[in-house]
């Protein structure tokens, strides 16, 4: 059994190495992704994001000052002999000493509130808020490396795209976007939004598959860990039995027994048939396994979970399938939807509903329904 314990440990180590490699790859992909997105933004947004962070901190300080001020005002000014300005200076002095600010920080109230805002006007404030959103999206997406939850990644992408578009509108991003329809291939390839989309799809397919592989490996490692702990506890005789209760043995209460019989029948009238100590149960299990191994060699491997190790090799095939089949097919279908919209627009000129951009959405939905029905039909044919 010790050999099996060693085997479990080595299997876990091997899986851990693969897990670390996969997580590192996911981290690298995300790093490249955000490096590319950040390269599209004006570097001043980082400073503005920091200013927004400082503003938030200052707002917290103001709230604290207001709270203290209200108490001090009540105590000091209403007690007569002091002015509201004195209450203000006392409040600020208290908070400044709490947060470790220097005494020179205590300014005139008007100047104070102006400096708290950090010299930000409304537009700059908006830009700083959007910049902070971008930073938050990076933090959320980094959680994807740790937890591997694709929904976290999706939210991060959604927030980062929103913040990039907003920064572009506010003039703080350098995206290259060409008019529709494109006149050459370079207008598609050099289009920032196409590049962002391509990179995002790549992350979803590759990163998503790798995150799935990491999740499967993690589940398996945790199972090995649990079974390994169970095996270790069994080897030291610590498997717990349920429904164990200590009772006073009173064998022979009704029967008249010889003294030796009383000794031998100690616990005879025990309440529970499963009165076993943990050591007894452990040795029982070990004995059972040793007996059954002679009959069936594979039992122990099966119990230890060695027969359910995940197959990681197929994941790389599915990544390639996703990138080279699913994605091109989706692009093709989107192109077909576009062509269909254009053709229908030319067939029914002057019809406002068809000329409206929302008609494209309608065509996409129709195509989705048609594809679903086709798929359902194929499934039924295959089943029959």
């Amino acid at each position, binding site marked *: 059994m010790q050999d099996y314990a060693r085997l479990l440990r080595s299997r876990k180590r091997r899986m851990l190495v693969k897990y670390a490699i996969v997580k590192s790859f996911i981290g690298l992909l995300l790093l490249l992704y955000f490096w590319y997105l950040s390269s599209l933004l004006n570097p001043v947004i980082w400073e503005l994001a920091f200013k927004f962070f400082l503003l938030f901190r200052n707002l917290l300080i103001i709230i604290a000052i207001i709270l203290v001020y209200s108490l001090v005002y009540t105590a000091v000014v209403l007690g007569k002999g002091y002015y509201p300005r004195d209450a203000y200076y006392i409040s600020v002095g208290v908070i400044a000493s709490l947060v470790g600010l220097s005494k020179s920080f205590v300014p005139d109230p008007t100047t104070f509130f102006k400096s708290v805002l950090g010299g930000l006007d409304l537009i700059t404030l908006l830009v700083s808020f959007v910049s902070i959103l971008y930073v938050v999206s990076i933090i959320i997406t980094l959680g994807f490396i740790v937890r591997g*939850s*694709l*929904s976290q990644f*999706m939210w991060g992408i*959604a927030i980062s795209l929103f913040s990039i*578009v907003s920064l*572009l*509108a*506010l003039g703080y991003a350098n*995206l290259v976007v060409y*008019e529709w329809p494109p006149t050459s291939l370079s207008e598609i390839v050099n289009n920032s939004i196409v590049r962002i*989309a391509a990179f995002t*799809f790549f992350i*979803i397919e590759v990163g*998503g598959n790798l995150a*799935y592989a990491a999740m499967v490996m993690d*589940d*398996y490692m945790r*199972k090995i860990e*649990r079974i390994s702990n*169970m*095996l270790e506890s*069994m080897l030291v005789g610590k498997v717990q*039995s349920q429904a164990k209760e200590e009772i006073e043995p009173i*064998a022979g*209460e*009704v*029967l008249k*027994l*010889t003294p030796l019989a009383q000794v*031998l*029948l100690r616990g*005879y*009238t025990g*309440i*529970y*048939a*499963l*009165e*076993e100590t943990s050591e007894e*149960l452990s040795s*029982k*299990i070990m004995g*059972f396994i040793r007996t059954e191994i002679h009959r069936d060699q594979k039992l122990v491997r*099966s119990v*230890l979970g060695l027969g*359910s190790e*995940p*197959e990681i090799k*197929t*994941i790389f095939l599915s990544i390639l399938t996703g990138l080279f089949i*699913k994605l091109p097919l989706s692009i093709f279908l*989107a192109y077909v939807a576009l062509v269909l919209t254009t053709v229908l627009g030319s067939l029914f000129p002057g019809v406002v509903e068809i000329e409206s951009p929302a008609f494209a*959405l309608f065509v*996409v939905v129709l195509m*989705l329904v048609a*594809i679903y029905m086709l*798929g359902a039909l194929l*499934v039924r044919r*295959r089943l029959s």
Partner: protein
Amino acid sequence: MKIKISKVAGVYLLITFTGFFSALALYQLEYLITVLRNIGIDISTFVPNTQEVIKFAPWLLILSGILAFSFMISYLRFMFILRVAIPRLDIRREVFKDKIFQGELTAVRIRIINPSVFDLDRVTITDLVPDAFDIVFGENYVETNLPAGGEIEFSYVLRAAARGVHMIGPVSVTVTDRLAFFMTELEIPTFAEIRVFPSYSDVRRLEITQKSMGGFLPGQHTMFKLKGAGYDFHQLRRYYHSDPIKLIDWKASARLGRLMVREYHGEKVLKVYIMIDTSYTMGFGFRRFTKLDFATRAGALVAYLAQKLQDFFGLVLFSSTVHNFVKAKRGRGHFLYTLSILAEAEPEGVANLPGAIRYLIDYEPRSGFVVLISDLESDIHNYEEGIKIALAHKLKPTVIAVMSPFFEIPEVSSVAKQMFRDAVLIEYMRRFRMVSSRLARYGVRVIPATPRNIISAVLDAYVRAKMRMIGAV
């Protein structure tokens, strides 16, 4: 089988439709800017790159369309897996021992084969185990992937904690696609029966004492001998005028100079019926040690002892009807068959002792000794009538009264709960005294049994009957 869409897919679809509606919003924005410009308002002073943003609109539409089609392709793939691959999953369960005693171990192995051409990305397979078993080693579930044509296997070791006939299964399968967009759950109705007999530990302890001491009762080797009848030589003694001539041992008489006869002895052979009340009230008690479990343990022990002492023993499990009847026989095979029947005892219905006694009399018209194990919670007239019928047909019952409060209310440290327990006990004892006094009028012994002494009480009743030849054949 339904496909459930996860939160991840929800976020994906949210992004897709946000893209669509953002694109439409941008088109509307373009129209709004044109209208405002026509009336002399230029918003580019506030938001300088509005025109750049509007260029996004058609690209956003296309990209959202690609996302939508990609989602639909993933959905169709999963639908294929659901309809084609999952129904073809081959799940096989192997139970190492399907007949075990309470407290013993057995192992279960599950093999899952995926014969289809689709990979099952993330599959969680759980073999549902009833509460009557403890999983002492291994796990009854696995979370892994199952590639096309692949096979996985897992096993676990169970300990039978409760007597009875239990079913392991069904197998629950949950399949998720690799992007965690879709999920489906299904139950595959494959079951395996495991029959758990009453605990053998009592019997095993008895076997140890018997082997080491030649019996566990003092004087057992002579206690059950009946002088006069039988074929085993007992002793030589002097001739008395009433002795049959054929018993005279002429050689011994010649040797000793006076007439001597050979005396033989035989075993006292009883016919004992163990009647166990399986009404629903007997199903109460501790989680895995109900009153009925104790009763079956006691019954199993009496059957074992009777088998060892060459007595005839039978079994009646009754509540509103007789659920199982085992005619009295002897031998090891009969003992094992009795154990198997005891494993099937389930609490249901209301006790109907007269009906059970009449049933017994119909199949066993001759006299016998009856050990009745019941909690006496049914109508007292019921029991009285049953006892009267038994006595009228020369059946000699002894009642083992299972004292419910001791089995159902555990000993507690809290004072309030202790007081409640005592109050229930007082009320129960009052009823018990009334019942036992009414049955005592017919000369029937009612022995109170608690978890600590039920086994010995039943054994004691049997040994007394054996010594006094109650129900002798």
